[in-house]
């Protein structure tokens, strides 16, 4: 820069061409002068409007929200006082939705990658160009390779409409939902096989005398009304039994903590059941009435004495007996929790089946405190993409002759292998919506290989997650605060109270900024361009909701006028078990050559010098989904590694030491974390929160914080019955980082 030229001097020079001004002139307001900045925030209740009809999606429990809005700006989120679910409360993530809404790193405009997959160079493009490109690329693949040339990965309510379009109407079978294959699908199919009931987490803890949790760390896992359910049970005097290698948040409130050897839970369950049967302490009448194949079952688990399980599980036989006696003394009012994230070791179908059998053995179904399915409102119209006749209904797992008890969709491992090898057919188009597949599926190298061989990758998301680095076209979705796409229904969480049902459609609390568009609009626009315009079930998100609500003579407008939630009298959920059968012995499974009686398969123990890596949740985050949220990052910036104090002493580790991890395959963590030294975890296992260690620098708050546990889960364990991925079968060495 030269000279002492000042602005003043310069302006005495010649004039220049001016450009147009996009500010519009309006009549000046009465006030004049500078608006003085208030030093103290006025509070969310001052000068704000209350926008109703919000449905949270910071996690997937979907609490009902209101927003406090000042001049178009969302100041605070609160629970909707009309809610019979969460009431006026919200958890930390729900409250932090404001920070998500206004995160400057959030996707804003459609983007095209003019660089490489994995090392993208983004260019903003118009919606027109983006949608045209998506449709033409997808159509080219479908025309050439059939609908099975596409695959879809998605999560959450944002993804459902797009997934249904691709799966039902376009007809691709290659749909792999993380919530099924990397989370809870194995639980549902195991319970369906045993009880013909998909359990979700529907145990009546509020009215139970005993709450039995295996690995279910309620408290670190926050699903708001579920926590209320649990706490009420405790307040009413329920005895809490927690089976967990770690002294989790629920272990801290427990009466009995069973610090079980990881991977051996099924052995303990079989021993409990065997003990109850041998001592006639099980629910004989219930089993007589509803049980099928009980004798074969009893015979099949006879080997599981308390002593045998004690040795396998590394817990005292007396403690297993204590738990069994407690359950027997309080049956049927015992809540045997089915769990949620149940894909642990690749032996999980059998463990879930054991839990379901135990529930049946105790008669804890349909009664106070037991497995009770709430009665949701009926009659909402089903509005969805039509299921078209497809030339061929190719099912990967049938072709592979595997996973006969899989949840809906394609087992992820089969899908990945097919894409990479091109056998039995090529998969060249990939659509990802609201899921970070890089951090969600074990063996990241394989996922990357799968993406790299695609001809076209489309990502729809709200944040630039690791997955989006592989997109060719990246579309900015509206967040749950800026859109309406589903209707949540349910019953009040304490089932012993006066039955009430609720219908809560999601409604936008604020207008989307930038050029974000909701995923229903995006799907419809792509569908039109691909030639499916006449199959569109709803032209807009509002129409989708209104059509569904019309089935019960309601509408968005009506419910908005009611304060955002429609509440009506409900039905008694108890004692609805006339058609129940408990398949202790499953002939269906026998037919497919799987063990017909719940069976324990030991898992590999950690090699010398290694410990097992186990992961879980923190109440501050929903894994990588919230990893960039400044308020949440401030509370939980890193995922410390829980290390047993004796192990730490042997390794020379102290509280707060910075460490790296290297796994059994020699893979080293890219980043570091710190050590939490505690007696509250076994010596053969270490624990950390999942979702950290983001590698995308565009998530400026999240990048490189903590360790990405998925990067160390390279060895895959696929559950044979369901095809779900077990992910607690990798071992690590801890190394001090300077």
């Amino acid at each position, binding site marked *: 820069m030269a000279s002492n030229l000042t602005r003043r001097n310069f302006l005495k020079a010649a004039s220049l061409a001016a450009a147009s001004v996009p500010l519009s002139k309006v009549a000046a307001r009465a006030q004049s002068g500078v608006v003085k900045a208030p030093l103290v925030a006025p509070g969310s209740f001052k000068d704000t409007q209350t926008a109703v009809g919000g449905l949270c999606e910071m996690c997937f429990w979907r609490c009902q929200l209101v927003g406090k809005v000042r001049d178009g700006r969302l100041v605070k989120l609160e629970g909707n006082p009309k809610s019979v679910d969460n009431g006026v409360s919200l958890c930390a993530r729900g409250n932090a939705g404001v920070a998500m809404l206004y995160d400057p790193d959030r996707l804003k405009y459609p983007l095209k990658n003019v660089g490489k997959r994995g090392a993208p160079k983004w260019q903003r493009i118009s919606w027109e160009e983006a949608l045209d490109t998506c449709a033409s690329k997808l159509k080219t693949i479908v025309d050439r390779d059939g609908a099975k040339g596409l695959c879809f990965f998605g999560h959450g309510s944002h993804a459902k409409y797009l997934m249904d379009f691709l799966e039902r109407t376009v007809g691709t079978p290659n749909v792999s939902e993380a919530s099924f294959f990397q989370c809870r699908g194995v639980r549902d199919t195991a319970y369906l096989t045993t009880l013909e009931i998909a359990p979700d987490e529907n145990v009546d803890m509020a009215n139970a005398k005993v709450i039995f949790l295996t690995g279910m760390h309620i408290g670190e896992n*926050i699903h708001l009304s579920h926590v209320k359910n649990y706490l009420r049970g405790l307040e009413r005097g329920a005895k809490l039994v927690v089976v967990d290698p770690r002294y989790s948040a629920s272990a801290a409130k427990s009466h009995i903590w069973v610090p079980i050897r990881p991977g051996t839970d099924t052995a303990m369950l079989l021993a409990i059941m065997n003990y109850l049967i041998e001592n006639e302490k099980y629910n004989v009448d219930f089993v007589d009435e509803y049980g099928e194949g009980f004798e074969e079952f009893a015979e099949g688990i006879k080997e599981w004495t308390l002593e045998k399980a004690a040795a396998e599980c590394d817990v005292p036989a007396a403690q297993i007996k204590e738990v069994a006696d407690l359950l027997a003394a309080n049956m049927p009012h015992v809540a045997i929790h089915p769990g949620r994230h149940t894909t642990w070791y690749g032996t999980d179908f059998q463990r879930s089946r054991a839990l379901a059998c135990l529930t049946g053995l105790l008669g804890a179904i349909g009664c106070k405190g037991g497995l009770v399915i709430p009665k949701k409102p009926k009659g909402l119209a089903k509005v969805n993409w039509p299921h078209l006749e497809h030339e061929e209904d190719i099912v990967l797992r049938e072709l592979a002759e595997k996973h006969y008890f899989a949840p809906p969709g394609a087992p992820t491992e089969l899908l990945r292998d097919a894409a990479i090898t091109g056998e039995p057919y090529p998969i060249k188009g990939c659509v990802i919506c609201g899921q970070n597949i890089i951090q969600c599926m074990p063996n990241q190298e394989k996922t990357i290989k799968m993406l790299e061989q695609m001809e076209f990758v489309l990502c729809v998301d709200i944040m630039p997650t690791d997955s989006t680095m592989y997109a060719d076209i990246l579309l900015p979705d509206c967040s749950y605060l800026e859109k309406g796409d589903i209707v949540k229904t349910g019953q009040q969480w304490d089932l012993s109270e006066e039955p009430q049902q609720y219908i809560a459609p999601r409604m936008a609390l604020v207008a989307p900024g930038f050029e974000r568009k909701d995923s229903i609009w995006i799907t419809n626009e792509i569908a039109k361009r691909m030639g499916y315009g006449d199959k569109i079930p709803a032209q807009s998100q509002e129409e989708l909701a209104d059509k569904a609500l019309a089935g019960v003579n309601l509408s968005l407008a009506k419910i908005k006028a009611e304060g955002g939630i429609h509440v009506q009298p409900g039905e008694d959920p108890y004692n609805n078990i006339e058609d129940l059968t408990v398949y202790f012995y499953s002939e269906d499974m026998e037919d497919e050559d799987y063990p017909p009686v719940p069976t324990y398969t030991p898992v590999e123990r950690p090699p010398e010098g290694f410990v097992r890596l186990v992961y879980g949740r923190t109440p501050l985050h929903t894994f990588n989904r919230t990893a960039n949220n400044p308020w949440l990052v*401030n509370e939980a910036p890193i995922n410390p590694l829980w290390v047993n104090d004796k192990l730490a002493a042997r390794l020379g580790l102290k509280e707060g030491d910075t460490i790296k991890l290297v796994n059994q395959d020699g893979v080293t963590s890219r980043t570091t974390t710190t050590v939490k030294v505690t007696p*509250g975890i076994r010596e053969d296992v270490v624990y950390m929160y999942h979702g950290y260690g983001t590698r995308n620098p565009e998530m400026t708050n999240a990048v490189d914080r903590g360790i990405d546990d998925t990067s160390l889960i390279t060895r895959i364990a696929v559950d044979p019955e369901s095809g779900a991925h077990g992910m607690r079968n990798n071992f690590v060495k801890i190394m001090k980082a300077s």
Partner: protein
Amino acid sequence: MQYGMVIDVDRCVGCHACVIACKAEWEVPTQFDRNWVHRLGPSITSDGMAATYYPGLCNHCAEPPCVPVCPADPVSVTFKDAKTGKTVTMEVGATWKDPFNGTVQVDTERCIGCGACRDACPYNARFVNEALADDHSLGKVDKCTYCMPRVAEGLEPACVQTCLARARIFGDLDDPNSEVSQYVKKGAVGLTSQAVQIGPHGLYFASKKGDRELLMQAAPQEMPKVSMRRSMLTKMSIVAKNQVKEIGLLGLAGGLLVKSLQDDEK
């Protein structure tokens, strides 16, 4: 009337909702906290393995050490009892204990941001936001106000409202029928220690002995030393700063004054 807050740690699940709700309600910058949640344990206590949570906030103490150290020029303020309409007039600095409801409040306008009150608090309940510095201050102090503006509108404090476990109970400790008083009868206590006994009104209830032990270990063990000289220097520097500015020697003089403050900090 003395407002107080009881935390029932039997119920608390350590979800941090209270921290975020407060942050949203009062637009607290991300790096500061008007309240906090610390995880305690798992550790071995005299009653076996235990783990619990310490949700903390300003205790609006009976003898708040933050009030007498404020060097701002005292002014006369008339307080009014919301219930009875009774008034009382007191000389107060930029922070005081309300004579009627027992809460400790701050006048942000008059605060000079010296940090003396923040340094005086053994619970670290206050912070100074230097981004709000202006011609009269080095920043502005902030802390929990027991949400008095919300309470005045008939609302619960933000943290109480959002708590999904109903683990925060707010009310009048002087009312023997209030829920907080019932908790006192059940044994809820403040986090005090031998050296720190300033009458906190944030009280903790735990039915498990191990949890009680962990909480008492989290109590501050010593009273901080406050540098009165530093707060007086800040006070003087603001006045001197204005005088000097008029003569136009701001750059030079400000440098000298700032340096002397830093020296004092060492």
